[in-house]
């Protein structure tokens, strides 16, 4: 499955540098896949805690941890959920741990090692402006 780097407008005019973003749908929220920044340095896959109730994911009593993301201290709650990616032609679903974080002021979720990269062979073609993901056999 191929994902062109996400092109975004800059507030001052022009465009931001395109970023590697994969759209990951939570079970229960298939109509709104969350744009997730591919982050090879992140151990976890993280999304805003605002998404959990929208997808019907219960976080009460789940394990939590505090950590820093981009210099901001935040708290994460773990849930094992079914995730789906699609490029419109192919679709792949897998079960994975996702940390739902509050506060989460970041524009995207984070697709990290656990939860995302462990499940795919990922080829990043930054020069050409896209990335390919292939589910691990």
């Amino acid at each position: 499955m191929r994902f062109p780097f996400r092109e975004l407008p800059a507030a001052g005019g022009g465009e931001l540098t395109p970023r590697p973003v994969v759209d990951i749908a939570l079970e229960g929220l298939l109509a709104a896949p969350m744009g997730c920044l591919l982050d090879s340095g992140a151990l976890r896959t993280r999304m805003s805690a605002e998404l959990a109730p929208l997808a019907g994911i219960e976080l009460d009593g789940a394990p939590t941890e505090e950590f820093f993301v981009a210099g901001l201290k935040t708290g994460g709650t773990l849930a094992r959920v079914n995730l789906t990616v699609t490029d419109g032609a192919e679709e792949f679903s897998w079960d994975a741990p996702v940390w739902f974080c509050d506060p989460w002021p970041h524009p995207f979720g984070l697709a990290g090692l656990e939860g995302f990269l462990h499940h795919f062979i990922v080829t990043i073609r930054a020069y050409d402006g896209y990335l390919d993901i292939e589910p691990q056999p």
Partner: protein
Amino acid sequence: MTVSGHRYELDSRGVQSALEGVLPEPIHEHFVVINGRRWPPKQVLALVTGLDRADFTTHQARRALTRLGFPAARAARSRSHHMRAAQAAGPAASPVGGTGGTPRTLVEALRPFIGLWVAVRGDEVLVAASSPKEVVAWLAQHGQRAQSMFRVPDSDQAITGAAPQ
């Protein structure tokens, strides 16, 4: 102006303020651009007049709104048709967030929504709102499916990297 036999005193500023806090419904064919967003003409005219949508046609609504200076166009079935429709529509008054009403790329379509949560499909912004909850509610209400949901970053620094420290 007269709509469906009723007389209304409408101006562009009044229409713009009436739409604050309201989310545009899905565009089926025709749209007008107000406050940097695409709106179904009938939704707008119904909102500002209080009339039932069955009381007037899309073309009447579109004509009334272009008279107030709002650009109008037809949703792109083909790009060339889309552009022609935009060029032919109404007076070129009322700047609308720099989009000109017919963004040619997703980047331009996203520009009016910097800082907001959006749901996109292809090069089209389906909805923009201040929270993911509103975006998801809109998608559910209108039976729409997005390709991606995210917040349009308000700076390069907002996505410079997010590795835990």
